[in-house]
């Protein structure tokens, strides 16, 4: 039976199939189910600083009615932050007590001091690794690309200073020179990069004339974007690479391994099919490896990446020239 163990997040994992950060990984019982189903690692639901801000506004309007003393509400955001963090730390401790599968804390902050604080605390609570969920949508017309990029490097540097557990990041694809920046990020001392964070997209309802949110779960075609970049980047950067978004079938999962991913993160397929989807993916990957004669993941990882002998096709498949040449 093929050995599907791999290394990502700076940790040795028994499987390349990782349960990505989602609402399912916010509850201990569900996390344990995913662990028992064979997930190589579990990324806990992200703590969002923005969520804390919204909670605060809610609480302020509620409390202002029965409590006319602003002194009580003055620093209430700290109370909400502490409560949110406390619950998260308890989740980490609870899960760690019940499984040996690596538990990765996921954090998304706004101010740099909070990134450092959260990172320290999750380490103290026993998280095996940290994923910085860097969710910056470049929709601010006044900022420059330099501002945005600076934020990534500064945050990573600050977090690396305060923790000993491995730090990895998850990024979106919105960069002017994606390959360049991923390369530079990979040299900062982080253990791994996961591509790509998926933004929720607005949609429009022409009947009610309102802006609505589109489907939250990924569709299967979504995998092509991260697949392309996994192929291009995996052999060229200094740290491990993992991919996410749209990985619903074992065939897709295998494609990513061949493209050079050390691991894949799945959420939507688990949401739709349950934890058993992970077991299925593990089994199918191993069966395919057996069929093809690969004994370990290292044997086939990156076999078809851009830097492998066979693959000028990665770049060629994108150029206009190609379409120009082919007759219709």
């Amino acid at each position, binding site marked *: 039976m093929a050995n599907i163990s791999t290394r990502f997040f700076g940790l040795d994992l028994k499987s390349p199939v990782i349960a990505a950060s989602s609402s399912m990984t916010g509850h201990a019982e569900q996390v344990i189910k995913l662990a028992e189903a064979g997930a190589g690692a579990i990324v806990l639901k992200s703590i969002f600083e923005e969520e804390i801000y919204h909670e605060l506004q809610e609480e302020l309007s509620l409390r202002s009615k029965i409590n006319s003393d602003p002194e009580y509400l003055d620093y209430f955001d700290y109370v909400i932050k502490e409560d949110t963090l*406390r619950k998260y*730390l*308890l989740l980490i*401790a609870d899960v760690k007590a019940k499984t040996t599968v690596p538990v990765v804390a996921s954090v998304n902050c706004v101010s740099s001091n909070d990134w450092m604080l959260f990172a*320290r*605390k*999750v*380490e*103290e*609570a*026993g998280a095996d690794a940290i994923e910085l969920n860097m969710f910056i949508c470049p929709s601010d017309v006044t900022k420059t690309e330099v501002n945005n990029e600076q934020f990534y490097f500064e945050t990573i540097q600050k977090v690396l200073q305060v923790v000993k557990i491995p730090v990895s990041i998850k990024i979106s694809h919105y960069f002017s020179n994606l390959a360049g920046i991923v390369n530079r990020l990979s040299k900062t001392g982080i253990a791994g990069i996961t591509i790509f964070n998926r933004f929720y997209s607005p949609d429009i309802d022409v009947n009610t004339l309102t802006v609505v949110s589109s489907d939250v779960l990924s569709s299967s075609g979504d995998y092509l974007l991260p697949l392309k970049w996994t192929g291009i980047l995996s052999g060229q950067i200094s740290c491990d690479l993992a991919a996410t978004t749209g990985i619903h079938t074992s065939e897709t999962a295998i494609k990513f391994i061949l493209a050079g991913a050390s691991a894949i993160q799945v959420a939507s397929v688990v949401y739709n099919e349950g934890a058993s989807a992970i077991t299925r993916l593990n089994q199918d990957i191993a069966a395919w490896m057996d069929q093809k004669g690969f004994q370990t993941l290292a044997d086939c990882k990156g076999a078809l990446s851009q830097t492998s002998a066979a693959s000028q096709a990665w770049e060629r498949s994108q150029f206009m020239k190609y379409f120009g040449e082919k007759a219709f």
Partner: protein
Amino acid sequence: MNQIVDKVLFSEKVAKFVVHAPRIARSRKPGHFVILRVDEKGERIPLTIAGADPEQGTIVLVVQRMGVSSSKLFELNIGDHILDVVGPLGKATHIYNAGTILACGGGVGVAPMLPIVEGFKKAGNRVISILAARNKDLIILEDEIRKWSDEVIIMTDDGSYGTKGVVTVGAEMVIQRETINECIAIGPAVMMKFTSLLTQKYQIPTQASLNAIMVDGTGMCGACRVSVGGRTMFTCIDGPEFDAHQIDFNELIMRLGGYSAEEKLAYERYML
């Protein structure tokens, strides 16, 4: 109220008091402590309840004279009253049938350990107790502990009684010879720290009973705060017992020294 009904000197530094406090005696469980104030000018200090007699309406407190407050208490005699005693405070020990318990008591920490050992024995556990201290004089409550233990090991730093060595030496010997399901460690912070590091190596769940500085003891001031698993907890309401492997002992030891300069001055004044 709070009259001292009996006093027994264990040594020139350690005394046992039996105090009349009927409500506390009735409500108290192993692991609970009281806060007391000897006189109008005194400090509020915590002391674990070492035993209680609900019918007589009395509780047992064991004091080691170290600074002003403990000395003032030590000086009281049968018939005297302690001005204020409030309790029972803290969370009671979680006592259950685990299998085999290893209880490690350092110095006067054996006093709070006694009711816990009794509780675990009554719950059907095999209990191995280690009493450790610097020398023979500081070993206390040996007979009482023996009553509730399957085995008692005594360790003294200078070898004046029992085996020569620190508590961790005795503990490791026991751990290596049989399966221990749960460990209790009570004593000076440094002792609990090293006992915890030992049991962590062998992955034995361990509870430590902390002795943080307190002012009110009811959760009001935060003086007793301690970091457990990255979270700040209050020894007086969340403890005094915590999962030892999660306690930041270095921080606890640092915080215990917070008023050492003032304490030293006060003690010098008191002794004049």
